[in-house]
């Protein structure tokens, strides 16, 4: 393995007046460009561990290396300007505008002001906020999801190689959280930062992590591995319990819509003829047509009986399209949406919201089968020759 971006070497943290150390003798390498998740029950020391990386909490003993350099005794303020930091409450500065918030670290690094202005706009665009709309607003004028994005933009502004994220999506409603998670993964494909990410939610860990460190008391590593490995071969009972039941359902968090061949659904254009649509619908043998607008964005589900009504325009009849996910969404997201949809299919759209295809229950079942099969293969291969077991199948 090449040099890790972050190396924690036998870190220990004892808080004053506490008998048991919060973190004891922890060694962990974080490879460059990966999202490493620290996950574990509350009080396991995961946040303490993360905060020792930028020395918000000073370790009692042990060493911290960043890009091969020992930073255990470096100037903490200089160190922190090289490390992005996003906490659960986000902690935007309420008295400063969004652009001043994002410009914080570049200003401390004394960038020229033209470069700072350009960087602020670039960062806001990167997280999907229109700079001309948001630059001069104050945090209180933003929704929770928008604040979270500004928090990420602010952490990325000085282009630090490393980001620390402490339950960054923890305080956000489930629907927005899912969208932000997907956006963040798309973003990470571009920026390729080394990220240490703390969560208590194993599902989030499986979804977001390239690697997961499952921690138990005193930040002892129960298992440090890829999500696939942790799900298919948990190291011990603790990990098994922590993953919880339904490991094969959780594997749906590992695969994304874009990795699958989507189903084609019969579609109709909003300026089409109703008679032809009805004929198309009969030919397709589905319950409804998917009506697209001029930008090919899904707008309505049109059933046969909707099409037979001539009294209302097309975009007012039929059912609203509720179950829509992006290409980055996992099959678990798609399944979630599907369960709420009356049509039984989730529509997949691209970044601009245009229709790509659909995911139905057959795709999900096939994915579960494939994963179960490959997990079984893997564990059989591990068991090896000593147990010469035959897979009798069903």
């Amino acid at each position, binding site marked *: 393995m090449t040099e890790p971006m972050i190396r924690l070497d036998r870190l220990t943290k004892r808080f004053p007046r506490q008998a048991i150390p919060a973190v004891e003798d922890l060694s962990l390498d974080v490879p460059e460009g990966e999202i490493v998740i620290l996950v574990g029950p509350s009080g396991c020391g995961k946040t303490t561990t993360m905060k020792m990386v*930028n020395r918000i909490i000073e370790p009692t003993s042990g060493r911290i290396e960043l890009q091969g350099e020992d930073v255990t005794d470096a100037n903490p*303020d200089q160190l*922190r300007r090289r490390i992005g*930091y996003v906490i659960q*409450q986000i*902690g935007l500065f*309420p008295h*400063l505008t969004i652009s001043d918030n994002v410009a*914080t670290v570049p200003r*401390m690094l004394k960038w020229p002001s033209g470069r700072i202005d350009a960087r602020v706009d670039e960062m806001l665009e990167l997280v999907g906020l229109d700079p001309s709309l948001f630059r001069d607003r104050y945090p209180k004028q933003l929704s929770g999801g928008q604040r979270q994005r500004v928090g990420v933009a602010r952490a990325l502004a000085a282009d630090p190689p490393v980001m620390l994220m402490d339950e960054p999506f923890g305080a956000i409603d489930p629907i927005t959280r899912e969208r932000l998670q997907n956006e963040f993964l798309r973003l990470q494909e571009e920026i390729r930062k080394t990220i240490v990410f703390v969560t208590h939610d194993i599902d989030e860990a499986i979804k977001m992590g390239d690697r997961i460190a499952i921690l138990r008391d005193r930040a002892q590593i129960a298992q440090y591995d890829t999500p696939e490995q942790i799900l298919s071969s948990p190291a011990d009972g603790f990990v098994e319990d922590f993953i919880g039941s339904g490991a094969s359902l959780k594997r749906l968090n590992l695969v994304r819509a874009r990795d699958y061949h989507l189903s084609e659904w019969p579609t109709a254009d909003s300026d089409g003829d109703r008679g032809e649509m009805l004929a198309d619908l009969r030919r397709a043998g589905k319950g409804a047509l998917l009506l697209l607008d001029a930008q090919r964005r899904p707008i309505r589900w049109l059933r046969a009986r909707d099409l037979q009504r001539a009294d209302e325009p097309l975009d007012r009849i039929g059912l609203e399209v509720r179950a829509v996910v992006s290409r980055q969404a996992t099959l678990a997201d798609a399944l979630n949406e599907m369960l709420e949809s009356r049509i039984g299919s989730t529509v997949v759209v691209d970044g601009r919201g245009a229709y790509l295809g659909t995911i139905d229950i057959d795709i999900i079942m096939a994915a579960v089968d494939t994963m179960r099969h490959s997990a079984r293969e893997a564990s059989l291969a591990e068991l090896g020759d000593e147990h010469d077991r035959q897979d009798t199948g069903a």
Partner: protein
Amino acid sequence: MDFFTYLGGNYNDLLEQTLEHALIVLVSVAIGSVIGLALGVLTYRRPRQRTLVLSVTGVFLTIPSLALFSVMVSILGLGTQPVIIALTMYSLLPIVRNTVTGLLGVDQAVVESAQGMGMGRWQRLRRIELPLAWPVILTGIRVSTMVLVGIAAIGAIVNGGGLGQDIFAALARVGSPAALNLALGAFFAIILLGAVLDALFLLLSRATTSRGIR
């Protein structure tokens, strides 16, 4: 002589005393703000020192003003100087208390994210904590100012100047018609001065508080 005739004749004197009164109050509040802010900033994270400072400045406020002025005069002699020192002492408690309350009220997540971005202790204080605590601190300064407008009148007894001069003149002539006019003139001037200063503080607060926390 009725009050309005009196007012017409003594308008200039009254205005001069009012301005003098305002000056004494504002100088004292300014000194008190510098000292009070410094004490608040130095002690807000240290519970024991904080309690000590708040108790001592609290005790200042309980000393009767006449007594404090007398003590000051025996040290410094007659004049404006002892009055300003005594008034400064009275101004401290609201300013220190509001500085501490304001700074402790800043969201810890905001402070931590500032720290996490590499702001040092002083930068954090200057750029994050003080601006966020500012409306509360300014309220403390405003309360002190209002308290001092009243107490400053007593300062005239040690030749401190201000609207107290007319009040003591009135006291010396109790029973004469001039006494009532003198007292009423000072009375209304003090109320008016208080109202004007209060309005100025509201404007100052609007002008110096970020739109993001208003």
